[in-house]
């Protein structure tokens, strides 16, 4: 997609629709981050398309002053696939919730990632069904008491990063609503990625699941628990950089820096073809509890589905010439009745 110099302000990205999330919802911050980011993306706004499913998060397209399609529950990646296949020149963004993406929509998500369709998928993970007023979701922690699990849920949640990596995702990243800088960085990396990008954004639902991400957003938690993944850099974290991540026996581990030599520290490389290390990083936490990696896990270039489809069409036209109906209807052989 050729970038033309377009200069927008954040307000240019705001539609005239009133934003209808609950006061205090983390979605507001993400909306602000995305609007600011899109304003500076350098693409004119008629080329931007936001596609969503159903859920609180999925109201997102209404608030973007771009083309937008609010579809049905779980199907946004498939709809977006149709959009980008039809016009590869568009910048296509999917906005979804944890239920929308990982419960009803899990299959479309993994297939879009596998195919490397050129769409960017933002999953706002509040670990709850917001719009339907608070049932547990496939990312809710085990034992969670909700309306539909009054005695506690008995399901191990998905680790969304692991799911995406297991599904051959070429770009996988994580951010959190409150951290606008990190969100912007991650969006930036995604926007320069050819193919599908999967971005999990932890998002506080202050009505049905308040403070789910406190360990990563509270004053202390954010310094203690965020493991920032930066390409090319040693993975070090903690209030005083006192911890590091190592890769030992095929597993990512957390070590006190005093216990290891600095040379043992894992140096993050988002471009590794083999997703094994990215996967092992994803296992450092199972949800936003304790030390949790944030940022880009993986960004690997691979042909996109769209490009390949277009290549076949171009090839067919080059080799057979533009299709003509006259020839088509005669292609099985004809005879004359006189």
């Amino acid at each position, binding site marked *: 997609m050729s970038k033309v110099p377009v200069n927008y302000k954040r307000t240019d990205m705001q*539609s005239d629709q009133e934003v209808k999330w609950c006061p205090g919802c983390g979605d507001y911050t993400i909306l602000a981050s995305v609007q600011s980011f899109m304003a500076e993306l350098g693409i004119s706004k008629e080329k931007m398309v936001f596609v969503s499913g159903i859920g609180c998060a999925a109201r997102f397209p209404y608030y973007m002053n771009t083309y937008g*399609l609010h579809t049905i529950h779980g199907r946004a990646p*498939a709809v977006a696939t*149709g959009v980008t*296949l*039809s*016009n590869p020149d568009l910048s296509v963004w999917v906005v979804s919730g944890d239920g929308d993406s990982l419960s009803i929509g899990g299959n479309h998500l993994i297939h879009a990632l596998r195919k490397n369709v050129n769409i960017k998928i933002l999953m706002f993970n509040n670990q709850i069904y917001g719009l339907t007023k608070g049932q547990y979701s496939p990312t809710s922690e085990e034992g969670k008491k909700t309306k539909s699990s009054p005695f506690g849920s008995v399901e191990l949640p998905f680790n969304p990063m692991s799911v995406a990596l297991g599904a051959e995702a070429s770009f996988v990243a994580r951010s959190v609503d409150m951290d606008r800088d990190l969100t912007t960085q991650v969006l930036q990396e995604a926007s320069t990625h050819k193919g599908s990008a999967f971005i999990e954004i932890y998002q506080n639902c202050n009505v049905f699941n308040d403070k789910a991400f406190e360990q990563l957003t509270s004053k202390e938690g954010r310094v203690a628990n965020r493991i920032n993944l930066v390409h090319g850099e040693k993975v070090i974290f903690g209030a005083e950089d006192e911890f590091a991540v190592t890769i030992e026996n095929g597993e990512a581990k957390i070590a006190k820096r005093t216990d290891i030599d600095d040379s043992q520290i894992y140096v993050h490389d988002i471009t590794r073809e083999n997703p094994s290390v990215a996967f092992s990083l994803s296992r450092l936490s199972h949800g936003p509890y304790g030390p949790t990696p944030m940022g880009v896990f993986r960004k690997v270039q691979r042909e996109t589905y769209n490009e390949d489809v277009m290549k076949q069409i171009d090839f067919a036209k080059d080799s057979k010439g533009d299709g003509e109906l006259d020839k088509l209807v005669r292609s099985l052989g004809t*005879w*004359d009745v006189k």
Partner: protein
Amino acid sequence: MDEPKLKIENKTVESIPAVTIRFAGDSGDGMQLVGTRFTDTSALFGNDLATLPAFPAEIRAPQGTIAGVSSFQVQIADFDILTPGDNPEVLVAMNPAALKAHLHDLAPNGMLIINEDAFEEKNITKAGYKIDPRESGELDGYRVFEVPMEKLTKEALKDSEIKGRAILRSKNMIALGLISWVFNRPLEDTINWLNKKFEKLPEVADANIKTLKTGYNFGITVEAFHHTYVVEKAALPTGEYTNINGNIGLSWGLIAGAKLSNLELFYGSYPITPASDILHELSKHKNFNVITFQAEDEIAAAAATVGASFTGKLAVTGTSGPGLALKSETISLALSAELPMVIVNVQRGGPSTGLPTKPEQSDLLFALYGRHGESPLPVLASRSPSHAFYTAIEASRIALKYMTPVILLSDNYVATGSEPWKLPDISDLPSLTNNLTTTNNSKDGFLPFHRDMTTFARPWAVPGVPGLEHRIGGLEKEEGTGNVSYDSANHQYMTDMRAWKIANIANDIEPLELNGDEKADTLVLGWGSTYGGITQAVNRLNEKGVKVASAHLTFINPFPDNLGEILSNFERIIIPELNTGQLIKLIRERFLIDAKGINKVAGEPFTAQELAEKIEEKINE
């Protein structure tokens, strides 16, 4: 072996107006191929024809069993025919199971050609016979010809490079050669076809050609076959013809729809019998800018199609019953967002997985009412392979002009049967309009739900067009702005508008036409694939002096404007359907007419004969 002499010597040639031949054998016996070759040769010769292939749901069910029998029926005629014939006058049975499965259909005194080498005890038992049917007397009343097809094949190929059991793969060519002799069809066309098909395997081409000729020569040589037949060219309207089945006709119609509307075609689908061949056919024609998307399931196929429609494509998704069920929610989205889209449903036997390779017309009410909420959309049906071409264009026209999803029904009978199609002059095909726009329609910003006041269609502004950015979805929308609205009056208005928009299409479609005796008391009304059967039955009855007319609906929703008037001209309305009575419900409801149904849900089309009898019964009731 010499070139067979094609002069007619030692034989009586009888000219007959039409013949129906059925080839039946094991799934692995190549009956579809034999049938298709004979059909194509006859088409080239100039007969009119219609075919009916039938195969088991298993890929290759156990050899020698009834479950594994595959068959192909073709009627060739020297006049204009509409069906693949009723009871075949010729049956070729490659083994006991094929005989068992099909004998009961063979016309009295019909010609029965059996592969005698297959009548070993093992096979006879497998077919479920207690004693050899050749000895039980059950073949009495037919003209039986036992042909040692395997022996002939082996002999023919004794010097071939093909060895061992592989030789027997060619035995179907004995049948084809023999039937070609009996019906005086030249072999050239098939020989050319074989040479081309096995270009890279000349020894295979050669073996098949040798066997083909052996079959033909067997006819020449063996006393029994000295009586042969010829079906003369049909006096079809002059023109250039090709032979197509309904899936191909429909596929080409979609490509034509895109060309005629200056759009590109997007086809999203998930394989399912009997619709898969549309996906296969379209995926060949990428030089028409056709994008085919094989999705992970039917929901994704429909959803991607909605995305393609939002982005300005002629967006089509195709499937069969179970897949239509899965697409229901997504179609409702397209309907609510008022996006143009064609949904092709090739009907098969239901419910559930049902009879996946058999025809049935049992998805009509599902097409009409198969969505939650008030969700009307146009429904039309193809009646024959060539009609599928035109209905695909028509469905595209309606979708694009009225900004609505359209359901186009076909069924296994239309989809896999074939008929000669007189090619239209492409330049005569209509060009199709659409609602694409690049200009703003109000000074307060673009109004995506500001309707055209004749069609009630909304404008179609697609991503990439500057200044028309807008956002829509499946929640109720405010008329004009398209913004989410929970307002009561607006919901009533939008519901009415959606209904009215579809109802209004009645003015924009071909009026219903009458066939047969217009002055009759009785009208036979049909839709879809029963067309050939009904029309032929009514014509036969007319010939017999029975007063009856017929009419065939292309649009089931909305009905053509003149339907009510036509119905009111008849005293008795009879509605044959391959279901338990679905169109009849719509007719009774709408016109409060006590129409009577002729219904069959047996995984088979009506034969003309069967219909003629039942119609007469109803008339005399």
